[in-house]
């Protein structure tokens, strides 16, 4: 189904006056007699005025200008777009959860606290860690939490370290997080098989290195086979090993970061446990740690004494508080429902099918676009269109935009940064065999069309609400708010 065409902004739709009362009149004093006049706005807020039917139509039209996992295949590598079960949303929204005030007190919130404690236990089991906090609001927030704990650990031991190592294939958040916590970052090279170059790692490890941040499987979709050696050399240097859990969905139920030697782990609940992406959040980024890092966990801590759950803010070595209250509780509840519906066999089966689908799709495509590394991969894989003798001027971005014209979302392009003309594909476990085959056939068809009429293929998309947008001018002369004033 093609997406909806142009929709004016709310500000153009606004009548400028009128509007509706939503609440009953209850009488009482005039506002000016309750609040000194210098605090009051001279006129109502400059918001648009539209009726409910107009607003509903406006936002419905906007929704129809979006691609979503419910409307089609979304093979975005590293982003893990898979089906989001409806039951998770509806149960997290039960009035007993949704109406609960965060300051009601632990005694008034025993149900929610119990679930938060239970899911921490499940996540500890799945990740192989000793204790988990659900406080961080997103993956990047989890990274921030984890690296703050790394710093607290070293400082507590009087160990002065100022470097965090990240592989050259890492997610952008890794170096950004390290910098936010005050660390310098040093890159570790990948070897010709797409994994961490152990010799390069050894040469960069010393008593200034606080941690190595690693994703496993890595962003090429390859399992770091030398992980046990990596862990050993990192620990021998007195550094900690940090697990970026963005790709946990490839191994959940099969192998555990804790067993590989990781000391700190963050888990993106929206990826492995399928909470909705929401067009860019809210997510949740629980963090798990080994025993020696438990004292540094963020506050508040959920504790259990007897059958009673309590909230503890008094933890002297803690890195402190990360958000106003306890993180994205509503998202944690969705993941709880998802996990309970799967059990450990179900979670393992998801990983198996995620890998099976990725391997199958790679198999269907590899004769048409070569993989960067031709080795058995996991839940995602990276193809490259860098060979100009084969693809001419047609490139990864061109293929992405043509896929959009054919009703598929584009794969991740130009990431990881170490691969030229990269196409990073992750089908996930919730896609059928038929969808994968249709997608592969479409890619082949696009390549053929592009060979026949490169000019046309280079300028796709044609069927979308807008064509390619001029991002350079938009950044040079930014228009960030609607200009018309009411």
């Amino acid at each position, binding site marked *: 189904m093609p997406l909806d065409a142009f929709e004016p902004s*709310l*500000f153009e739709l606004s009548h400028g006056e*009128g509007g*509706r009362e*939503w*609440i009953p009149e209850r009488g009482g004093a005039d506002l000016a007699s309750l*609040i*000194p006049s210098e605090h009051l706005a001279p006129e109502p*807020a*400059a*918001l648009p005025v539209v009726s409910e039917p107009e607003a509903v139509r406006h*936002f*419905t039209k906007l*929704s129809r200008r*979006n691609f979503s*996992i419910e409307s089609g295949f979304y093979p975005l590598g590293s982003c893990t777009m898979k*089906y989001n079960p409806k*039951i998770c949303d509806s149960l997290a929204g039960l009035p*007993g959860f949704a109406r609960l005030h*965060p300051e*009601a007190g632990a005694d*008034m919130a*025993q*149900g*929610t606290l119990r679930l938060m404690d239970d899911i921490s236990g499940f996540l500890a089991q799945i990740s*192989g860690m000793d204790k988990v906090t659900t406080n961080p*609001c997103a993956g990047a*927030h989890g*990274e921030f939490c984890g690296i703050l704990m790394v*710093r607290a650990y070293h400082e507590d031991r009087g160990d002065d370290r100022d470097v965090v190592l990240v592989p050259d294939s890492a997610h952008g958040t890794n*170096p*950004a997080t390290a910098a*936010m916590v*005050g660390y310098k970052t040093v890159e570790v090279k990948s070897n010709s098989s797409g994994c961490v170059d152990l010799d390069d790692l050894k040469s960069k490890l010393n008593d200034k290195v606080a941690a190595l941040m690693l994703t496993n499987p890595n962003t090429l979709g390859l399992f770091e086979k030398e992980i046990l050696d990596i862990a050993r050399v990192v620990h021998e240097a007195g550094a900690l090993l940090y697990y970026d859990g963005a790709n946990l969905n490839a191994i959940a139920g099969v192998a555990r970061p804790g067993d590989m030697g990781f000391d700190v782990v963050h888990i993106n609940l929206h990826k492995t446990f399928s909470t909705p992406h*929401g*067009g860019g959040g*809210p997510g949740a980024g629980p963090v798990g740690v080994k025993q020696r890092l438990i004292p540094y966990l*963020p506050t508040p801590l959920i504790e259990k004494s007897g059958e009673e759950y309590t909230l503890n803010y008094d933890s002297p070595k803690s890195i*402190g*508080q*990360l958000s*106003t*209250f*306890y993180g994205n*509780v509503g*998202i944690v509840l969705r993941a709880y429902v998802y996990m*309970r*519906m*799967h*059990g450990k066999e179900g979670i393992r089966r*998801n990983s198996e099918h995620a890998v099976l689908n990725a391997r199958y799709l790679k198999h269907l495509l590899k004769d048409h676009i070569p993989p960067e590394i031709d*080795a*058995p991969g996991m839940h995602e894989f990276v193809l490259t269109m860098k060979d100009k003798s084969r693809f001419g001027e047609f490139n990864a971005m061109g293929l992405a*935009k043509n896929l*959009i014209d054919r009703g598929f979302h584009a794969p991740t392009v130009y990431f990881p940064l170490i691969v030229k003309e990269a196409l990073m594909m992750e089908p996930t476990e919730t896609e059928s*065999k038929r969808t994968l085959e249709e997608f592969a056939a479409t890619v082949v068809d696009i390549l053929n069309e592009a060979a026949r009429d490169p000019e046309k293929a280079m300028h796709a998309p044609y069927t979308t*609400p*807008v064509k390619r947008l001029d991002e350079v001018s938009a*950044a040079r002369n930014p228009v*960030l708010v609607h200009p018309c004033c009411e």
Partner: protein
Amino acid sequence: MVFLPHTPGDTQDMLNTLGLKSVDDLFSMIPAKLKNPPIEFPPALTEMEIQSLMESVAAQNRGAQCLSFLGGGAYQHFIPQAVFALISRGDFSTAYTPYQPEVSQGTLQAIFEFQTMISRLTGMSAANAGVYDGATALAESALMACRATRKEKVLVARTVNPHYRRVMRTYLSAPGVEIVEIPARDGAVDLEALKAALDDDTAAFFIQQPNYFGVLEPVDSLAPLFEGKKALLGAAAYPHSLGVLKTPGAWGAQIVCGDLQSVGIPLSFGGPYSGFMACREDLVRHLPGRIVGQAKDADGRDGYVLTLQTREQHIRRAKATSNICTNQALCALSATIFLAMMGPRGLRGAAAQSVRQAHKLYDALCSIEGVKPMFGQPFYNEFALELPAPAAAVIAEAKKDGVLPGIHLKAGEACDGEGLLVCATELTSDADVARCKEALKNAIDHVKTHAVV
């Protein structure tokens, strides 16, 4: 096989194509000693079972059934049903971050409308697409002020929400930014102390309006203190209150942040919410997080894109303004739809009624013998009381009666004395006011009687 489409035949076909015998062979690259770890996990539940489990657990949240007068940064305001219906549309809720603008115009345009509404509500010239919540918005605003002024000291009023101040400490400890808390006098910032602390090394001063105690701070006196200084004036705002209160821009704030929970997001035990950050034109390039801008397409049509991305982690990596990716988009969308539904008149009506009901509640509670206002200041929809009995015991007693009368202010934490922070909104009826008075009075009497024994 809860949400997996393959039949056993499909799986076998695919394995055959790959030349594999079983699904276990898919994991041959993982060292054997790492495989098949012992995992303790309860057995899978059917949809019917999980539904009844969650319903019974939800019923254990007694706080959700009580009549609540809690605020302190999370407020129970009216939300039109259309907000929930619209954000539940899968085209919004199951879309990814709008990195492919041609198929994400819905999310992008909604964010642009959000930025415009937040800018207008706060009296600023621009806003970002949102951050995690109010506390992290304040922390990020403080870091932003340090970047913009190249200074490493931030002042914050002690009347700012204590949770916000704690999160600020967590964030600012990392780069080693110094935080100086400005003391309060009678529940509002001590202007003399602020004047004395505001030196040439200061990046910014942050104040909350209304403050944690509901007190309306003397904001008009602030801007003159900053004349001729490099330091920025920052505000944490309560967006719902901007239906009646003067915009922070009008009293001189240059960065405004806050939590969007009050405008269209359910309480949900503290999250997910979304924070917002708005600023003056000259500070835009220091904002962290996503920002949407207008752009023209190849045919000259208007569209929207993520812009100024050279500030962000996926481009700048270690040199980014923050590591943040998310903007809690669906929560920001709730706020956008809420503000569109309510409009200026609806928001003003609800905000004004919150103030009126709070003042009725104040009069009712202050008529209880021994109950006194903690401060002699004008307030918005929240106020602090001193009780004639220990607050913790009084609250515990009122809870038994099905009433959450307020937040316990512990001596020495948010303020010097011990007390109760009480809140009303437009959802507080006159009958609720009477019920709160009755419950609080009974609880105080009970505690006093039993304390004597």
